């Protein structure tokens, strides 16, 4: 099990993490991510893709 962490000052609500990981990342009413839980083993590849795809490099998988 691992966890997604957000660099909040870096995040600008592009929402790509939610597109790639809808089960783990919801968006609030302003489009900022809400990480709802741990990243399951089966979702790890998608989580890594979300980390790479973030245009602000504001995600980490720990």
């Amino acid at each position: 099990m691992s966890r997604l962490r957000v660099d909040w000052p870096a995040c600008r609500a592009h929402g790509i993490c939610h597109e790639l990981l809808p089960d783990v990342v919801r968006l609030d009413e302003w489009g900022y991510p809400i990480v709802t839980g741990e990243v399951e083993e089966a979702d790890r590849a998608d989580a890594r893709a979300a980390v790479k795809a973030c245009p602000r490099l504001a995600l980490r998988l720990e």
Partner: protein
Amino acid sequence: MSTDTAARRDRLVQGAVTSPLEVTEDLDVRPGPALLAAHLPDLAAHRRRHGMPAVLDVDGLAALVSAAGMRGRGGAGFPFARKLAAAAAGGRRPVVVVNASEGEPASAKDAALVATAPHLVLDGAAVAARALGAREVHVVLPGDRPRTRALLAAAVAERVATEPRGGLLDGSRLRWQTHIAEPRFVAGQAQAVLELMAGRPNLPVTAWQPEAMAGHRGRPTLLSNAETWAHVGLLACEGLPATLLRGTAEEPGTTLVTVVAPGVRTAVHEVEHGAALRDLLPAHVLGGSVLLGGFHGTWLTADAAADAVLSAARLRAAGTPIGAGVVIAPGPRACLLGLTERITAYLADQSAGRCGPCVNGLPALADAVAGLRRGQPDAAERVARLCGLLPGRGACAHPDGTARLVASLLRAAPGEIAAHARGRCEASVRGAA
């Protein structure tokens, strides 16, 4: 960036909303059993009373603070021994930081301590620096308390001039450095202090690791509140038995409490753990609700305030942590909704403006609390939802603390919220009676 957020960021001119409680340095400092027992502004007077602190290695210091049950006094209440152990295990030479920035306008305990016994604070930092092999002690001074800033800077300068080894007997040398915090609420947050020390804007940033592991220039950094350091200094000067005689068996020692009440000067008390909260309150505010822990604190109902005991452990267990020891007692006639509305608007304005959930969520929460005060029918639901959305989503705990305050209003004042929804303010009705 969403256009909404961009607009908010552009509009964000911090300082537009004044604090409902102003910073004051005109304090009523009550004599206490230990830290505030004697007025010792200069080093000679301090040494006459307390002597030199013990020279301790890191194991000795850890044993001492563990036996005393020491927890941080900056608000989070983290066990000091664990922070010390983390800094010692970092593998690089640690740095020690005294945080006397006291960014909360309602708090005055660090100012009282600095005016009364600044060298206890500095002794604590010197003892820890010696134990950790640190060579630098950084002292962060408050940006909006000029008298306190001058007193603490003078104490550091006096120590550098008269005790070249930094107040230690064993030949180690310390370099003391002072910094002035920005006059804003979040400036004293640990990561914001590290930014200040690094010469960058004094604002919170994301920390991937706690500062005790990787802080100033990547070094393990033992950063603690001024009062925490004073307790360490006292332990090193007078030894464990004196501390164990104060407070309770489970929670030895004393704590500083700032009491803010209408019509009287802000008072700072040093009380033994286990003291009754009501004994610190002026008679004219008894029977009212109390905001415990300051602007990031929690509302206690009048009944809970009447029974509350100043034990950090018991208050934490009750879900009403003592925080940095601020007690705001507006009295039985005050409208809790109105005061919370003003505090929330101020806290929203004090956002560093860096994290989306805070930039957007705090003004939204302030609007929702205003709606609650005006009696809007759907406001309570909106407030509760926003309070659930804010925690854990920022570089610092400013949104968490603001949500804690507002959520506690929902729990402590359901009758008043219902009265506002009916278009009546119970507080003013009671006040008129």
